[in-house]
């Protein structure tokens, strides 16, 4: 009976998963998620997405296990020890959001030598034996300025809110914004502050610099800082500029309110926390014996004036706009990299 049920289930999944499906190969495999930080809403959404998709995959016997592990202190040494434990525990693949692009390379090399597939995402690693699912952060920064250039061809003064100083993601988005501003010289970045991707920090930093700034036409951001910036402008009784948002629910709600009130226009861009599920499927495909390029690119999630309402409706209250990826999405990403 059980075997027949399993067969049915297998056939059902095979139909869903399409012609590439070969679940027999990975049904005994164990995948671990090594995560360096859980202390903000984006990471919490990332872990929730992982939980949702992998539980389903385990129930359908696509993989034997997909256990998430998070380090307490967001430190590379701690995560390296965690990876070494995973090697000893006999995982077949490790999906990792790394605390550092380079400091974990030793531990990751050990894992590769032990025959373990390592897939890094979001916080990627440079070790050549690992796979990388990177977001085009530079493109994300550039797209903001391009949007503004289209919206206001006359240009104007920009305020840039950067992320956490010293993190590679911050440097890349910043480089994109600078490149965009160079291509569109009608825009001038008149001020930059670090908002640490947190509304309260961004609010404080913007409130501090705002009294010294000339009129601001637009604010370019990195995500998680747009609402704080909006509040700082309101507190200083300054006209609200076009603030690029970062897909957080409170930002989208604020945007919707402004839109209903006075037709406020902007865009919102960030990476979906569900990118962890894409990494999961990529790891599963590699374990399945598929040829996968070492460097994959995941598109960022962009919300525009037209699809604001639909995205707002599907976003959890107080959370982040999210997309969870399916096996087919992963296969599309893999094949487009070839």
């Amino acid at each position: 009976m059980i075997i027949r049920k399993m067969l049915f289930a297998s056939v059902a999944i095979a139909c869903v998963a399409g012609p590439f499906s070969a679940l027999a190969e990975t049904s005994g495999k164990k995948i671990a998620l090594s995560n360096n930080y859980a202390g903000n809403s984006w990471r919490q959404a990332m872990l929730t997405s992982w939980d949702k998709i992998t539980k389903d995959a385990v129930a359908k016997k696509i993989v034997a296990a997909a256990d998430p592990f998070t380090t307490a202190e967001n430190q590379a040494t701690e995560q390296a020890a965690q990876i070494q434990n995973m090697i000893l525990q006999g995982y077949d693949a490790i999906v990792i959001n790394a605390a550092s692009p380079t400091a974990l390379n030793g531990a990751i090399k050990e894992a590769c030598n032990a025959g373990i597939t390592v897939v890094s995402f979001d916080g990627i690693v440079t070790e050549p034996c690992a796979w990388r699912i990177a977001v085009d952060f530079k493109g994300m920064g550039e797209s903001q300025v391009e949007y503004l250039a289209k919206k206001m061809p006359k240009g104007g003064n920009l305020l840039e809110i950067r992320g956490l100083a010293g993190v590679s993601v911050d440097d890349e988005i910043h480089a994109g914004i600078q490149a965009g501003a160079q291509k569109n010289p009608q825009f001038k970045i008149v001020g930059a502050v670090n908002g640490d991707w947190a509304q309260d920090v961004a609010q404080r930093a913007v409130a501090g610099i705002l009294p010294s700034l000339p009129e601001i036409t637009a604010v370019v951001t990195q995500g998680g800082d747009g609402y704080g910036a909006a509040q700082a402008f309101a507190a200083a009784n300054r006209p609200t500029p076009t603030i690029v948002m970062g897909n957080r629910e409170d930002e989208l709600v604020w945007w919707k309110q402004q839109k209903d009130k006075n037709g406020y226009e902007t865009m919102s861009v960030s990476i979906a926390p569900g990118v962890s599920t894409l990494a999961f499927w990529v790891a599963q495909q590699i374990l399945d014996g598929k040829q996968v390029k070492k460097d994959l690119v995941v598109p960022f999630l962009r919300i525009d004036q037209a699809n604001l309402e639909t995205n707002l409706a599907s976003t959890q209250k107080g959370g982040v706009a999210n997309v969870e990826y399916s096996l087919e999405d992963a296969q599309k990403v893999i094949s487009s990299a070839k």
Partner: protein
Amino acid sequence: MTAARLLFTKPWIWSFAATVIVWVVTVLFTGGASSLGLSQAALTFAAFSVIVGIGQMFVITLGPGNIDLSVPATMTLSGTLALKLMDVQDGMILVGLLTSILLGFAIGIGNYALIKLLRIPPIIATLSISFIVQSTAIWANRGLRIKPPEVLASFTTSSLFGIPNIAIVALILSVVAWVLLKKTIYGRWISAIGQSTFAARMTGIPVDGTRLVTYILCAVLASICGYLLASFSGGAALNMGSEYLLMSIAVVVIGGTAVAGGNSNIPGIWGASLFMFLVVSMLNTYGFGAGFRLILTGLIIIAVILVAGGRQSNR
């Protein structure tokens, strides 16, 4: 002349002097146009540092080794739980505040229980409690942002006669703390304990009771700060307290409170809190990059402490 000399022997004068210099330099950038806006922003954001700074000051006054590292986690949990409990209803504002205060009580007792019963040094004890508290905050709401009640949000973001409400709240708390410190027996006790725990015990001061109350006081102030900050910035975030760990200690030290304990200083905390906000604003205004800004912030803090400390030893 003697009045001036008397003034210069006050350790808090240096943090205010530094604040005024930084304020003037920042305002000069716009030729004075930004003075009102900058002052209001500085008062608003300094208020949060003042509230946690006062709590930390009481703990540091207890003497070497006394410190509360659970401040950020306490702020986060207090903001998270209070906003979740209030759930955008104006009628629940006081209930939320009460919950925050009770939470502070519990965390303070937990901190001191570890220190006293298990004989763990304060730095380790409060750090362990902070892990538990932070994990509880994550577990409680998974980082989802709940909006504060409308009345509370507008109270925290508006101002009275040009002075931000938050700054008024911090001022009231400061006055209460000042009275507690200078005019009550409790204040004498913590200074005595900070100068010599052994001597304090010999003179019959209830050392354990006083220390317990001090750790509770610090946690309660951190809770209130978390409650206000979450209401002010439109929701609690899991990392909203992280800035305030070093901040709470820095404003105490720059403000002229003796790190070795036994001598505290409330006006200095105001000077230091305003200074810490204005320094970042000044460097942002002049367009320094993040790396350079951090180095300069560090150097300026060292300079202020050196000047203030040098004067103290001359006395």
